[in-house]
Each structure stands twice: as C-alpha cells, then as structure tokens.
C-alpha cells in the first residue's frame, strides 16, 4: 500500500526564517513524488516534482530514498508563501497515475 505522511498539521515561521515541511512516504516500488500548494481560495497547483530537480519560488525538495522522505525547504520564507502544502506520491506501477496525498501542512509566514 502507498502512504504519505506529513507529520505537521500546522507550521508557523517568521518572514525571512528558513522553513522545512516534512514528508515521508511508504511504497515498495519507485514512486514519483510531488509537492502541491493551495493558496487561500485557490485551486491545488503543482509546485515541485522530484524528477525535475528544479527550484520553484525558492523552494526545493530532495528525494531521500534511504529515509523515504521528500521534505520541502526554503531558506528565507516570505509572507506570500502562506498556504496549504500537500505532498503526493504517484506509484507509476502498472501505469497507475493516481496521486496519493498526505494530509497537508498549513504554513503561516508571519511578518
């Protein structure tokens, strides 16, 4: 079975502080990992995909297969980063394209 765990329901930091949103996954194969973000009153949108290894809006995430983690990091948080962040896994096994989501972490960046 596939499972994504985001241990922090809420995370609050001050502007300019580093932020790390934790994500751990459970899957026996080689999944594809994503971070989705939902800003207030907006739709879910893709933030990062592990395969692309890019930085979006200053955020990066590294897949650690040994620790089965895909933590999202940003060195200097901005107020506009306040949002709901969801880690998601796609099994890709047998052509599966479903996304398995974690419960999400609500990030608040205070001025």
């Amino acid at each position, binding site marked *: 079975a596939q499972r994504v765990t985001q241990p922090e329901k809420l995370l609050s930091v001050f502007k300019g502080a580093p932020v790390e949103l934790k994500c751990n996954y459970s899957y026996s194969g080689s999944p*594809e990992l994503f971070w989705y973000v939902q800003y207030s009153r*907006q*739709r*879910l*949108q*893709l933030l990062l*995909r592990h*395969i692309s290894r890019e930085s979006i809006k200053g955020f990066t995430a590294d897949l650690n297969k040994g620790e089965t983690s895909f933590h999202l990091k940003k060195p200097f948080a901005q107020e506009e980063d306040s949002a709901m962040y*969801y880690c998601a896994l796609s099994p890709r096994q047998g*052509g*599966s*394209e*479903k*996304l*398995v*989501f*974690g*419960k*999400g972490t609500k990030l608040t960046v205070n001025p």
Partner: protein
Amino acid sequence: EPEVTQTPSHQVTQMGQEVILRCVPISNHLYFYWYRQILGQKVEFLVSFYNNEISEKSEIFDDQFSVERPDGSNFTLKIRSTKLEDSAMYFCATRGQGIYEQYFGPGTRLTVT
C-alpha cells in the same frame, strides 16, 4: 491561462438523491481524474479515465459512482444514491498527452443532508 472548471461550486442534496458533478477539462487534455476530500481528511483518488474508459479506480469508487464524457467536452461524476458520508469536496483534474502535471479544478462542495 486555460483552467479546469467545475460546476456547481456547491451542491446540497438529500440522502438517496442522485447528483451529477461536472468538469470542463482544459481543451486537448485527454486524461481525466476525480478526487475527493472529506472535511479534515486527505485528498483521495477516486477514478482515472482515458479514451472513454476507466483506467483505474479506488475502492471508494463503488457501484454508486459512475463517470462519463457524454458530449466530448464535459467530464461528469454521478453518484446514484447519495449517502451522508459522500459529503466532501470533489476535485476534477485533467492532464495532457505527454505532460505529467495534473491540473486541478476549483472543486465542488457536496453536502448531503
């Protein structure tokens, strides 16, 4: 920028009634998905649909649920006889050929009373 749209934004229905949730995908997108999120819980996969066929479904997607693309544009999710536990936010997502990203709609909030 093209977006996935969903109607209605909020639907209230009585237990046992049928509901149809509608999604208009981004044009030229060929892969379609439904997810739901019960209040306070995870976003859960329901079904994926391609080439007029279900390609994958979860155990949540039982005989009460069905999907179709009746007119080549809308993609619908039908719940035949709603239960209280069907109350949730339902999200449609679509994807283009050769593109990995699933684009989500704004969701339909279904309330079953």
